[in-house]
């Protein structure tokens, strides 16, 4: 019995640590901040460059875009999936892929303008990380 408990404790530690490591890695890769109201998170991409914010709250909540305008044509419903693709960069956006489908200067501001709007940068990233830790909205 004791042995089993020991093993269990050991296993739970292992799980906990690997979970922690996983979390760590995730935050290296980017940030996913859940939003209960909308049912879809705020996402910060860290690849290829750090600190690009996509906000469901803004696009769905404030603009009222329907899920179908993005899912599944432009994006899969899995956070930080897009940045696995080698072509998730500005050129792709300029060619009308990903965010560039709308951010083309007609439907929404063009991808080659207002850089610091999508790009919240390392500063924005750190601020959000801190807010997430302290549990502030």
């Amino acid at each position, binding site marked *: 019995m004791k042995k089993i408990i020991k093993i269990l404790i050991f296993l739970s530690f292992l799980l906990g640590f690997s979970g922690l490591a996983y979390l760590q890695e995730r935050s290296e890769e980017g940030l996913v901040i859940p939003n209960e109201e909308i049912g879809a998170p705020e996402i910060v991409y860290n690849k290829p460059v750090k600190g690009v914010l996509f906000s469901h709250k803004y696009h769905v909540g404030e603009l009222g875009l329907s899920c179908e305008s993005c899912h599944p044509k432009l994006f899969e419903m899995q956070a930080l999936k897009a940045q696995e693709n080698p072509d998730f960069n500005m050129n792709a956006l300029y060619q009308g892929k990903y965010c560039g489908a709308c951010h083309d200067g007609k439907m929404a501001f063009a991808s080659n303008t207002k*850089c*610091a709007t999508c*790009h919240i*940068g*390392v*500063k924005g990233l750190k601020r959000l990380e801190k807010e997430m830790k302290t549990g502030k909205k």
Partner: protein
Amino acid sequence: MIKRWFKEFKNLGNEEIEKIPDEERREFLKIGLIITGVFAGGSLLSVVSKVAEGLATPEELKNNYPYKPHYSMVFKIDLCIDCERCVEACNLTNQVPDYGWRTMILERYSSKAVDQKRIFLPILCNHCNHPPCVIACPTKATIKDSQTGIVKMVSYKCIGCKTCMTACPYNARYFNEERHAVDKCDFCWEKRLSKGITPTACVEACPAGVRIFGDLSDPLSEVYRLVHQLGKPVWVLKPETGAKPNVFYTIS
């Protein structure tokens, strides 16, 4: 001094087109309308460090840029996305400790701003032509290089009085414990330029083409062209201190 001012003033008055290099003239005519506007307004020029001289003859050019190469950096600040690859590259190249920085990105944010609310502003040592730090240093531990115009540190002479840090209008200096001296950006002179590697680490690392580095005394260089164009505003930070910085800001 007054004479030079007067000359600049005259240059503003009658743009002596025949004296301008060919390439320059084409640019000049292309944006002729804007130029007229700028000249009439005048105000823009007063914040630009050297635009009037941009339309000068070669020998005047030499007077204006006493260094060869006259190292300078131009920022297209609207492109900056604060990915901080420049900062990382700088820290790595120059062994900048975690408590200091040689270059950093400032975030300007105003909720009252129309449209775009945020813009990033990269800063580093401005390698001024009249560097307040060099004037203030008691032991010549910081010098203006007579060849390149780079403001360098001579670490072993630094007594650590920190006057240069208070003197610098740009917050470009910090005390480095490992070096036992004040440390600052030297346009990567120590680690790259002196070994024939160009450009600086931060310029190389920038993915967005924000930073442009080059010889301001060379009319063919990109920095020269960016600083001497009139179509877009070119400005320097804190011109009122009279330090005559060699780091310029413009937009893409």
